[in-house]
């Protein structure tokens, strides 16, 4: 019983909403009808571009494997190093805390403090899947401006962190080995 509940838990809201909408139309409950019309518009907006965005992301994933770029991290320095970490970050997906283990790997591979923080910055605002969805919802202008404004600022954060931490025994812990 518990297992069944757990399996269907994600669908509870959808089911409630479906029942609510159906009931609203049956008894002529105007707010319910209005809400379902809102939902219909949002749903059409979503279904007409998000699945295609994911097709693009999936293709990207097979043609530009992250492992290939990761191999070069740490060896390259200067502008090339910065571009490399930004590219690597752009290919990722998921929440920021998923970037911390990668930061540990970069650190172990010899990436500079600056590049590690640039990586985290790029991870949080330049991921390609995010940019795609942002363009779809907020327009390419907003996305372009936000990206161009953010880029120099988080590179600045990288330089600041390196300047601030370079004589302070900076290290990143692997929390798997150190509970």
């Amino acid at each position, binding site marked *: 019983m518990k297992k069944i509940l757990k399996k269907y838990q994600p669908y509870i809201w959808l089911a409630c909403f479906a029942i609510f909408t159906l009931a609203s139309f049956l008894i002529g409950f105007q707010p319910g009808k209005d809400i379902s019309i809102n939902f219909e518009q949002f749903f059409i907006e979503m279904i007409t*571009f998000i699945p295609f965005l994911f097709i693009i*992301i*999936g293709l990207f994933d097979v043609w530009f494997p992250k492992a290939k770029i990761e191999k070069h991290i740490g060896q390259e320095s200067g502008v090339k190093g910065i571009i490399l970490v930004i590219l690597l970050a752009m290919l990722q997906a998921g929440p920021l805390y998923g970037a911390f283990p990668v930061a540990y790997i970069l650190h172990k591979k010899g990436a500079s403090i600056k590049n590690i923080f640039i990586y985290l910055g790029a991870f949080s605002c330049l991921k390609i899947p995010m940019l795609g*969805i942002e363009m779809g919802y*907020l327009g390419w202008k907003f996305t372009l401006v936000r990206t161009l404004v953010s880029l120099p600022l988080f590179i600045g954060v990288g330089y600041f962190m390196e300047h601030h931490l370079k004589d302070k025994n900076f290290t990143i812990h692997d929390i798997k080995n150190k509970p």
Partner: protein
Amino acid sequence: MINNAIIFISVSIILTLVSFFMDKKKTLAGLKKGLMMFKNIAIPFLNILILVSLLIYIVPPKIIQEYLGAKSGALGLAIAAVVGSIALIPGFISYPIASMLIKQGASYTVVATFMTTLMMVGIVTLPLEIKYFGKKVAILRNALNFIIAIVIGLLVGLIL
């Protein structure tokens, strides 16, 4: 909205065709991967759309304009920055919310600040971040990102 669909559909078709001519197997793997990813977010995404549909009905645009609009000033910016720093909303799901806020009269500054803190500052995940970077570095990174998120918001608002 229609433009969006046209752009995304044509880009995905062109890329798929190009990819297919170059490598059949890779293309199929990519398509499969993409659809799997879509499947994983579909239900949470629909739930958020339900929530947004409800909110847009319940919260009058006037309130959003007052607290998050162009004239909300420092208060709107503070609300956006603080909520964005605390909330743990996956990026994907936050965009319909952002788009709804703009349509209802929130300013670009407020929305850009909210989105940026959401992505770059994590109060809830701070304990985890401390485990990786140590207390001082983690707090410093979050504080710095909090500040630049506000700067980003102000600049985006200024330009758009």
